[in-house]
């Protein structure tokens, strides 16, 4: 156990810090609302050039083969800058799925394309939660598979060239890799509250060639869960970064803003709200560390540690963003003050791939079954 950064880690952090400083801020965030698919292509290229897409891809597939700690450090920096580029979908989630599901040349091909930033891939997994909608199922046809059904809120799908689609197939799970613009796939894109994009996907007799099925059965479930847990760790790390900056911005505001003849930071109530933010952010980073310890280990231990971290970071994100807005007073609920953007981003980071409630329920089940 060692908390000091390695040279490589320091390099990643420094480059991320530089990019975040140069490329983010209120004006940029407002401008990004106008991007059709939520991605700034120039920024994407820069990130790829910095090697970020390749960071946790194995060396034998053209990646840098770094451990998840390095990725977490990068994500913390991106979280500081509220960077919503679809890095996690492609270079964490899809990269892991393809690393485990594909072999030899095909694996090298796809991971190589991810590592260079050439391709973006989104996961289409969650299904709508209301009556009148149906999940995705596949059936085997002569030259491949036919997919029907709906997926909701596929994060980053609008800018993705390919989709990883989970599906029912002959009574078991299946994982397909398909081009998003294939015939029979309709994309309903929309913005999320942090300016990133998601889409609902409707599959109507969508044809997938035979090699589009990349995993099935227990293997598909296992690979997906591993990949989702890695993506969750990346989200948690972004949340940690976002909290630490929200805290700094709020403390700064409390020192500047005068009311009743003194900076509001002199009021004990404001001090205590800020102290609670600090405690929460500290606790969130600790939870991230716990998840990182187990991320490559035993599956049930990994799932448990990640769920714990998602819960702790989720609650911490609420404390930090709520108190941050409260301390900012009226300015806190305006689009013009960055704290409201941290608020919205932290809400997305809490909910994505399962919020506090779902993860707490998962942990409760573990407790009961232990």
């Amino acid at each position, binding site marked *: 156990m060692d908390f000091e950064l390695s040279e490589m880690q320091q390099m990643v952090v420094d480059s991320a810090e530089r990019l975040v400083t140069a490329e983010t801020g209120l004006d940029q965030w407002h401008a990004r609302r106008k991007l059709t698919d939520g991605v700034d292509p120039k920024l994407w290229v820069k990130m790829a050039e910095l090697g970020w897409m390749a960071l946790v891809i194995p060396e034998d597939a053209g990646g840098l083969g770094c451990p998840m700690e390095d990725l977490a450090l990068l994500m913390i920096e991106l979280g500081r800058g509220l960077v919503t580029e679809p890095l996690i979908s492609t270079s964490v989630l899809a990269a892991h799925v393809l690393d485990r599901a594909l072999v030899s040349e095909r694996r090298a091909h796809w991971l190589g394309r991810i590592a260079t930033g050439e391709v973006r891939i989104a996961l289409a997994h969650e299904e709508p939660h209301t009556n009148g909608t149906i999940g995705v199922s596949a059936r085997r046809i002569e030259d491949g598979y036919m997919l029907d059904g709906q997926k909701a809120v596929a994060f980053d799908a609008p800018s993705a060239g390919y989709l990883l689609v989970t599906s029912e197939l002959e009574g078991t799970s299946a994982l397909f890799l398909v081009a998003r613009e294939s015939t029979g796939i309709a994309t309903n894109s929309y913005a999320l509250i942090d300016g990133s994009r998601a889409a609902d996907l409707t599959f109507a007799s969508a044809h997938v060639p035979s090699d589009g099925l990349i995993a099935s059965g227990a293997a598909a479930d296992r690979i997906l869960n591993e990949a989702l847990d890695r993506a969750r760790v990346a989200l948690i790390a972004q949340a940690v970064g976002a909290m630490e900056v929200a805290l700094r911005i709020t403390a700064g505001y409390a020192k500047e803003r005068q009311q009743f003849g003194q900076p509001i930071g002199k009021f004990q109530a404001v001090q205590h709200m800020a102290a609670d933010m600090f405690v929460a952010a500290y606790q969130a980073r600790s939870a991230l560390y716990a998840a990182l310890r187990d991320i490559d280990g035993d599956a049930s231990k990994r799932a448990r540690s990640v769920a714990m971290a998602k819960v702790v970071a989720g609650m911490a994100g609420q404390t930090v963003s709520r108190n941050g807005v*409260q301390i900012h007073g009226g300015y806190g609920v305006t*689009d013009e003050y960055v704290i409201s953007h941290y608020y919205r981003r932290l*809400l997305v980071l809490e909910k*994505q791939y399962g919020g*506090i409630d779902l993860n707490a329920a998962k942990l409760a089940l573990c407790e009961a079954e232990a």
Partner: protein
Amino acid sequence: MNLRFDERDEAFRQMVRSRIAQILPWDISDRHRRLLANTSHLHDQRRWFAILDAEGWSVPAWPVEHGGTGWTALQRFIFEDEMYAADAPEFHWIGSHMVGPVLYTFGSKAQCDRFLQPIRDGREIWAQGFSEPNAGSDLASLRTQARREDDVYIVNGSKIWTSGAFEADWLFCLVKTDTQGKPQRSVSCLLIDLRSPGITIRQIRQINNEAHLCEVFFDDVRVPAENLVGEEGLGWTYAKFLLDHERTTSSFIFWIKRELTRTRELGRTVVRNGRQLIHDPIWSGRLAVLAAEIEAHEWSVLRVLSEESSGFPITAAASVLKVKGSEIQQSITALQVDALGEQSLRDYGAESLDASTDPIWPDLYQGRTSRALITRAATIFGGAQQIQKNLLAKLALGL
């Protein structure tokens, strides 16, 4: 002490309910249900006010001679409860609950004649200019000045957080008429036509995409001296009168009850792990506790309405309504967001949409997160939670 409901009140409720059902246009309530903003649609509000005015119900709390209904406090409570339950637009508070009462209490006859009827029928909409950029919770440091020159005041300065100023007609504004005297005696109330030359209005985009809050700038704005309310220097007195007058509004009880109904609907609409969310014991447990808090909150409102006697000033009880009401607004909208899970993250923009035909996104989902976001302001505006608690400690406990 007798806490049973009176049969007559129940009859009154039935009467009001059926009459509202008759006179409230369907398109208004339909739009209102899908509202993204936290405030009612102004056009609908004007239409609804005109309808209510025809009924004689647009300003129930005013004295009968000014168009009020003569209802008891409890009847007014029931009426408003039913308005919300019917998804009617809400009162335009500033006019009906603030400006009107100040004018018929402290204003001149001419002011009453000029201003009250257009408030009653929704023709003139009012905004309120209290806060300033450097005086949020700290109203003692107001700086906007009104200098008397013959029969006009020349106003310079700016106001902020002025809800709806961009679409309002008139501003009820606190200004400094005396730069030397004690702060408590230097503030006056002016009625300012928002179309006066020299006024610039900037809308402020909010966390939920709405831009309802405004900044209002005054650059040598000329206001006829007859638009001074009551006496110069008594602005604080009138502002305090308002707060004492409106003890229960900040409870948001009707708003909260409507959101409770919507939350229950959500619990039956959302399906998670193959069952309705309402059957998830943790979520329904949270809902149940919140519903209990709301039931108690409603009774707190009734106690304040009835001016229950107790060992502390009634203003302390009014602060309880504000503190608890704003907490509950945040809890209930948070529970809605949690119900929607990842689907809560969708940004609907600023404009309400037509009725949904997409089963993934029932109408009920629209506006839930938008509401939750702006509800963070519930503990900020109208006296931040911190200030309310300072006040409570002082008023109720002598600390």
